[in-house]
């Protein structure tokens, strides 16, 4: 081998050159995967959301709890929306039709920029979009004013001034005032008045001539409305008393200048038709002891209406009973039941049981509590806490007590009890109100005191117990047997009356029941059988006495004392036969119209009542 002199002298340089040569070649000959599949995305196809962010308002007023109605079009795919007040997040959500809610009280009062930030999918088709990492942020901004100062309407109330009633309030001087809307409801006029001038602080009610007026006062400020309920009653001191066979009426002078006439009407709901209209001249508007004489038919359930300008203002209801030619008023509330015995009258309302002396009408005893009295006077109970207390209806002293919770749990709030002659106690309780404005829910329990068993329980939506075919029912299902003193109508109806109903026995058919009358003695009852009227022992049902009539017995009812009435069908004609319940001797006989068969029939003392709904009561007094 030979080596050139030059290379020999550059031996070291040769090593370096060789190394560099190798490195450069290795680097140059190493494959690099640098081809790129680049795709041009057409972003002009990307859609921005169409949003209605309170477009109709330049400036938004926010107060307390805020709900903003935002509509985001469905041309985009919403990921999230945010509402910022200033730079602070107020609320966010994910619905494309949001009612964005937040509490403005989280922010200090002031002027802000409110921003709706809508984050949507870009749908550009890019790599980031396919990874759902590419979003489109669209912002809409407006000026907003946060004002959390409370809106307080200051209603001064109703003021009588210069013979005219006014509704007055203090001016609401804040800049955010919008309007005041006064809604008034009165028997003679309903009206709504809008006040847009904040400097106005009263409205006149010149048409008011007394009675009651109610309504609402609505103060509308920016984004806030506050309503105050209004109520005003001026009964003009109207009062009615009964003394020595006469009604005494008192009333103050009518101070309202719009009054043109004052009248008082009265009606005995236990006699036929509206009776007397008495119109008083203006100059006699005030009186203390005006006497009204009325025809005497007892008992009486009198309602007196006070009217001005022929419009109802207020009323008074008075009941008067006649006992041995002495008349005296019954002091009771609308829910009174009463029982008349030979010596005394026991009356029970919702909260009281009062025993009157039958001769003098004086109050003998009075108890307060949740009482129920059976119509025959045999059963008197009080429900107190968990106890069902049995009283002697004669002495009004307690006899025994049953811990009711051992047998029955009453759900809800207890309201009232009833007791039948068959010693069945009906409890009635309130469960709940319907939050959607429908009827409230109630529950009734029928409890047999003797066996201490709950015979039936039922939830129902009505608090009005219905009487159908002489049965006390709750919505047609729960039926109590025995005799009830039961009030007509609802607890809100002032025309309620004391009425004795005969209810069916749970063991008898309805057709036969119509021919039965249960007597006050509780020992015997009457039942019709063909043309026979049979007096049976109540306990063993054996016939004690039979009276054969000259027609088929259709229906039997009694006054729970000494008289009974029997409707008979004789030669296609109906008659009423009045008999003595002791010996079944016929006392008198009356004509009876077939059209009255489906009427309610009541026999109170010596008066026969036929009724069909309110305002159609016919009475026939039986001459003894």
């Amino acid at each position, binding site marked *: *081998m030979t080596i050139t002199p030059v290379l020999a002298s550059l031996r070291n340089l040769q090593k370096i050159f060789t190394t560099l040569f190798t490195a450069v070649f290795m680097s140059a000959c190493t494959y690099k995967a640098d*081809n790129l599949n680049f795709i041009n995305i057409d972003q002009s196809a990307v859609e921005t959301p169409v949003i209605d962010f309170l477009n109709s308002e330049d400036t938004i007023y926010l107060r307390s709890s805020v709900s903003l109605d935002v509509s985001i079009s469905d041309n985009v795919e919403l990921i999230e929306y945010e509402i910022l007040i200033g730079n602070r997040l107020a609320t966010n959500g994910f619905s494309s039709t949001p009612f964005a809610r937040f509490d403005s009280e989280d922010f200090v009062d002031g002027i802000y920029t409110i921003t709706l930030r809508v984050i949507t999918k870009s749908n550009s088709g890019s790599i*980031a979009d396919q990874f759902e990492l590419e979003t489109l942020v669209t912002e809409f901004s407006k000026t907003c004013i946060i004002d959390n100062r409370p809106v307080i309407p200051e209603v001064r109330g109703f003021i009588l001034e210069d013979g005219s009633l006014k509704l007055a309030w203090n001016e609401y001087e804040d800049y955010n005032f919008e309007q005041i809307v006064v809604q008034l409801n009165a028997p003679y006029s309903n009206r709504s008045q809008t006040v847009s001038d904040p400097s106005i602080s009263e409205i006149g009610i010149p048409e008011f001539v007394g009675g009651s007026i109610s309504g609402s006062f609505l103060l509308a400020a920016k984004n806030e409305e506050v309503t105050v309920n209004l109520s005003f009653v001026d009964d003009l001191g109207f009062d009615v008393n009964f003394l020595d066979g006469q009604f005494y009426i008192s009333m103050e002078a009518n101070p309202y200048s719009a009054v043109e006439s004052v009248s008082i009407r009265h009606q005995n709901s236990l006699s036929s038709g509206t009776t007397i209209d008495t119109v008083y001249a203006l100059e006699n508007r005030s009186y203390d002891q005006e006497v009204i004489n009325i025809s005497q038919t007892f008992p009486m359930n009198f309602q007196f209406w006070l009217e001005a300008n022929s419009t109802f203002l207020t009323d008074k209801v008075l009941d008067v009973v006649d006992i041995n030619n002495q008349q005296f008023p019954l002091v009771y509330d609308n829910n009174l039941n009463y029982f008349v015995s030979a010596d005394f009258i026991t009356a029970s309302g919702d909260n009281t049981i009062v025993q009157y002396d039958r001769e003098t009408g004086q109050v003998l005893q009075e108890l307060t509590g949740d009482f129920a009295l059976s119509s025959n006077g045999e059963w008197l109970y009080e429900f107190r806490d968990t106890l069902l207390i049995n009283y002697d209806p004669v002495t009004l002293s307690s006899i025994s007590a049953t811990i009711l919770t051992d047998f029955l749990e009453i759900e809800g709030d207890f309201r009232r009890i009833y007791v039948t002659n068959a010693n069945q106690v009906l409890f009635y309780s309130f469960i709940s109100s319907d939050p959607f404005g429908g009827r409230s829910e109630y529950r009734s329990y029928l409890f047999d005191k003797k066996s201490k068993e709950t015979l039936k329980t039922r939830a129902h939506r009505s608090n009005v117990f219905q009487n159908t075919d002489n049965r006390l029912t709750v919505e047609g299902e729960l039926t109590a047997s025995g005799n009830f003193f039961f009030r007509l109508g609802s607890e809100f109806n002032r025309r309620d009356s004391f009425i004795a109903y005969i209810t069916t026995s749970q063991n008898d058919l309805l057709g036969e029941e119509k021919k039965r009358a249960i007597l006050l003695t509780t020992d015997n009852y009457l039942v019709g059988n063909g043309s026979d009227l049979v007096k049976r022992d109540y306990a063993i049902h054996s016939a004690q006495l039979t009276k054969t009539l000259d027609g088929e017995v259709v229906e039997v009812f009694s006054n729970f004392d000494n008289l009974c009435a029997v409707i008979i069908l004789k030669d296609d004609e109906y008659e009423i036969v009045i008999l003595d319940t002791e010996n079944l001797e016929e006392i008198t006989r009356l004509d009876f119209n077939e059209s009255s068969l489906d009427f309610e029939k009541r026999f109170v003392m010596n008066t026969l009542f036929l009724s069909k709904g309110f305002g159609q009561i016919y009475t026939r007094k039986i001459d003894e």
Partner: protein
Amino acid sequence: MKEIQQDAQSQIPIQTRAVDEFPPFWGFGIDVHTQDDWGGMNVKLGGILQYTSSGGSANVADFSGHLKFDQLVNRLAIGPSVRFLQKNDKKNKLGTELNLLVSFSNLKISSEQKLFDAPSQVQSVKFNSISGQIQLSIVDRYELSSDFFIQLKGGYELDVVSGKLLFKSDSDAWLLTPQGEEARLDWSGLRFSIGIGYTFAR
């Protein structure tokens, strides 16, 4: 390697396109042969060192970023060489050459995701393998001077033995094909080279 590339493409949720599928690529090498004949038969003994590389890439890119799946493979081969050249006085000499090669290969599989301004997310794994090849070539040598010459060579290389692609960080693990078989590199193929030679001694 193409199967692995296609399998990777099918598993990526975004559609990519294979833009490189292991194409032929430049390499370089060094041959060293004796000047003296071996056995008086114009046969020269020597050795050969080669470096070659190739790769595959499936990717997609747009304004929002790019997604890549790359496979880069290279090898360093070394082995004995036997060359037979015509013995004449002409400057241009034609002959044949037989090489036995041991190849040390390296495979790097990497994926990269970059979106907007977020940092790239890169993952890569490396594998090594050893294989053996036979290469038969025709050699044309043209002497430029008494010391320098140009050499052209063309031939075919055949994989004879191919080892598993062992995971670099754990030689007890190796790469499998989508079918579950052992993945191997196959360097078989045509080889063409051009080079400059230098005669150190005569």
